[in-house]
């Protein structure tokens, strides 16, 4: 199941790359680098989420930080 999930994620990302390919080919190196780093971040997070669906996320971080405000309200 997890392998299928990773595969699906990868396929979607490759698909996105294919759609954007021509636009990217003509653009500067900086754009390419930014594009690929975002894609990498996407892939890493997606795979992590597939493997550990219960991974604590930014939501819990915000909860943790702002919980101290609650008593004042």
């Amino acid at each position, binding site marked *: 199941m997890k392998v299928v999930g990773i595969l699906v994620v990868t396929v*979607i*990302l490759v698909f*996105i790359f294919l*759609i*954007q390919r021509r*636009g*990217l080919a003509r*653009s*500067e190196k*900086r*754009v390419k680098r*930014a*594009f690929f780093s*975002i*894609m990498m*971040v*996407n892939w890493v*997070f*997606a795979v992590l*989420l597939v493997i550990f669906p219960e*991974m604590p*996320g*930014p*939501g819990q971080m*915000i*909860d943790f*930080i*702002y*919980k101290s*405000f*609650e008593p004042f*309200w």
Partner: protein
Amino acid sequence: MIEKGRISCLELALIMYATVATTAILYIPYVTAQHAKRDLWLSPIWGSLSGFLIVVIIVILSRFFPGKTLIEYCELILGRTIGKIIAFLYLFFLLHDTAIAFREYGEFVESAFLHKTPMLFVTGSIAISCAIAVHGGIQTIGRCALLFLPIVLASYVLIYIFLIPDLNVKNMLPVMADGVMPSIKGSLAPHAWLSQFSLMSFLLPFLTNQQKVMKWGMFSVMASVLTMVLINLGNLFLFGDIIINLQFPVFEAARFVSIGSFFEHIESIIIAVWVLGGFIQLSAFFYMLVLGTSQWLKLPSYKPFVLPIGFLIILFSAWTIPSFEDMIRGMGTTVPFYFLTVQLLIPILLLCVAVIRWKKPKSFLQ
């Protein structure tokens, strides 16, 4: 400039209205009712304070730096390093906020109709349609808003017109039975929603007419607050005290419409129309995030990043919020503080530093 399209002031007001009001009318009645009880219609009025304040700050900042968005002038005001960090915090918040908006959309569609469809398909499909709009640029979104929002607004009004025989004005009495505090406590969520007017800074550079920005910004805040107040009142008149127990009072109200026992069960139409508003809202969020990111990275075009960032948004929408109950609880407790600190404090900080460094906006105008 990264964006070539231009929008009119009316389109700006409509986009901001959709950004705030679309999900506000769904989620705010429940969240505020938990504290404010019968005074829930007062809460958005207190909440409007942060809306107005933020519009004023953002407009003054845009006078300092015409043609620049928050991400860009962040660096100009605070210097390269600190500016980048603050801008990143803001962008991260925007990503989170966008993810929450997508999740709100998904949760509503799920709990109303598509109980068994996995959330990712609901949010993913709207994300693809939004991506097409975002790819078209701000002008596309503006025109969509101009086309769709009148229909959306008309549908809201129609629900309550159809329900007039069932509305009982007495339900709102006694007003402020426990003093003013419950309604102020309940205003936490409206504060959070209205603080999203700070996102206006992403749209201001693309206006055809920069003169009347303040007026139209205020108008947009006013319209959003008015919508929330009227919807809350309508729900209160219809449901009375049980409004505290209803998750989506607006949806229930649409289900309640029955005219002459043949014109009923219209909620599907109402929701279909609501999705149009949701589309504008999500496209606007999406666009701002994509634009902000490419400005932060100082890139010449934002178009290649529409799809990757869309993917990231969907990832975040699944990741940051574990469940529906969690989301609702967060809206009433921690999330508003988060929204306010980022969207109110960062612009205030920027404005203070800008005023100290340049005194008057005029000196910077070339």
